[in-house]
């Protein structure tokens, strides 16, 4: 949202009665002032918990429990970050924090794969629904549409069981019995999230505005269907794809429930899972936890700052048309 969208200040009526002038000026000063008086303290309250987290991540464990709480670290240290990345292995091991840097890598692998696969699969399907005519299209689309809003709550348990019984993986036999299947694996973390009916729906809306003549022209030039999709359709969808990429990535990055359910091997912990289990199991390396929290938050903030425009457009895209 750019400044150009700001509502223009109301124009002065053509023949202003002279008596209203001073009152008007007073109001133009008074209104923003009230706004600032509410908004600025509010904003400080909203940012305070995050500011405190950053400060805490640079404090030694002992200072975290100090009373009064310290806003500016009295004894700044990088110990938390060192622990997180496993520098000084024996200290980390002694405090039960070895291998936590791995969580971060896992999160990156999962979030990137989910995003890439979703963009590809979603846009392939969206293109077919928007621009191709073939028997069964409307029926299949209806299937997607009808189950688009099924909350993950219902599919959680069956999907857990399905993954557990994927044949020939994770020690399973051909009937899917005996092992743990795709539980505790990247497949399990990535594949159930690799397509989104809602994403297909949104992209299809977008692709329908592409003129058919453009595709026909490419077809006459002898371009293959995939080439048309890749070289003509996708470039035209960049804004929608960008918005979708940001949402998918942030969602996958901070997803907690699914990893919690299917992962028990600590080598496969994602950042949110690792951090959450760390807290609930009452471990003591709070400095590492604070540092880890900052690190887990950074990619989100960076993505948001860079793509702020798409982010906000994406919200209105997924929500309403104005």
């Amino acid at each position, binding site marked *: 949202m750019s400044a150009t969208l700001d509502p223009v200040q109301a124009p002065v009526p053509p023949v202003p009665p002279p008596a209203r002038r001073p009152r008007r000026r007073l109001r133009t000063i008074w209104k923003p002032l009230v706004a600032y008086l509410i908004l600025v303290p509010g904003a400080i309250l909203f940012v305070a918990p995050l500011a405190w987290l950053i400060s805490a991540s640079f404090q030694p464990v002992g200072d975290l429990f100090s009373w009064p709480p310290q806003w500016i670290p009295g004894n700044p240290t990088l110990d938390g970050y060192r622990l997180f990345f496993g520098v000084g292995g024996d200290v980390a091991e002694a405090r039960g924090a070895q291998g936590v840097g791995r969580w971060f890598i896992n999160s990156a692998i999962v979030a990137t794969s989910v995003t890439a696969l979703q963009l590809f699969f979603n846009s392939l399907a969206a293109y077919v629904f928007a621009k191709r005519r073939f028997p069964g299209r409307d029926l299949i689309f209806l299937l997607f549409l009808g189950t688009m809003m099924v909350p993950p709550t219902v599919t959680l*348990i069956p999907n857990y069981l399905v993954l557990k019984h994927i044949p020939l993986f994770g020690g399973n036999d051909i009937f899917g019995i005996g092992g743990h299947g795709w539980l505790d694996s990247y497949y399990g973390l990535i594949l159930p999230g690799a397509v989104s009916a809602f994403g297909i729906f949104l992209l299809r809306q977008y692709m329908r505005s592409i003129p058919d003549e453009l595709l026909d022209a490419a077809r006459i030039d002898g371009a293959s269907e995939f080439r048309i999709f890749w070289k003509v359709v996708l470039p035209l969808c960049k804004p929608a794809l960008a918005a979708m990429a940001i949402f998918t990535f942030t969602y996958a990055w901070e997803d907690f429930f699914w990893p919690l359910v299917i992962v028990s091997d600590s080598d496969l912990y994602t950042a949110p899972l690792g951090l959450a289990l760390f807290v609930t199991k009452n471990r003591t390396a709070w400095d590492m936890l604070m540092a880890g929290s900052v690190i887990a938050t950074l990619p989100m903030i960076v993505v948001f700052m860079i793509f702020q425009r798409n982010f906000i457009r994406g919200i209105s895209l997924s929500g309403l048309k104005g």
Partner: protein
Amino acid sequence: MTVVPAPTVPRPPRGLRHTLRQARREWTAYLFLAPGLILFSVFTVFALGFAFYLTFHEWSIIEPDKPFVGLDNYKGMVEDERFRRSVINTVYFTGASVPLGMLIGLGIALLLNQPLRGRAILRTLYFLPVVTPFVVVAIIWKWLYNGDFGLFNFYLLKTGLIHEPLAWLADKQLAMPSIVLMTVWTSVGFSMVVYLAGLQAIPEELYEASRVDGAGAWARLRHITLPMLAPTTFFLLVIGIIGSFQVFTQIFVMTSGGPVDRTTTMMFYVYEAAFKFYEMGYASTLAFTLFLMLLVFTALQLRLYRRNDA
């Protein structure tokens, strides 16, 4: 529902052979659709049916036989005191956090919707909690609420608002309000951004006309702004209810459902039933019930999007 572009050539007579021929000619369409359709069929369509199937079975991961039990799971659920508790908690949580988050978001959006210096920065600051990973938010707030060294107790004691430190998350009366407050903090930014988009879509002429008619600021808010924002409010309400009914992360990290089940929400109970007690059948029954409770709102949500399907 889907608008098929008008065919340039008159449609040839339909028949099975024709359909098959057309399907063969358009084989790439099926190929393009395949990956999405396969994943979707397994992880959504099949899963939905399987979930329903599970509700009629006693399905333990540990036990080899999974007997059909008819409606026993449903009967057990109706008599289950914890289930009732979890419904009450979920409704309480939703009823408190959704309107509060929307109201504060609307207030901030109204204040921000004027030419202010530093507007973009303020908007970003209010939005930061939304982009912070939820688990991290829960960790921060758990710390803030800590009875011994938490910031809440420190400042409340210091300003003399309380004289004894409060137990917050460990207090039966305070645990749920504490979770609500933390959730509101994370959701206000989202409502704000959606409301801002809604506000900017209101035509300026409406306000000008009302000014000419001598309407005051309050009248303008009541008779123009709020009615014009009704679709936005409706959207936020539906989305908010659906999300809140499935609240889980903050419960898991901050209270684990305690104290004495005061924060056990439906989703948390589903999780416990499935992955602590390994009763997949009963857990599925709980999850399916939650799904049915949400069905009205899900249908509304679908209609919201379908309306844009022009």
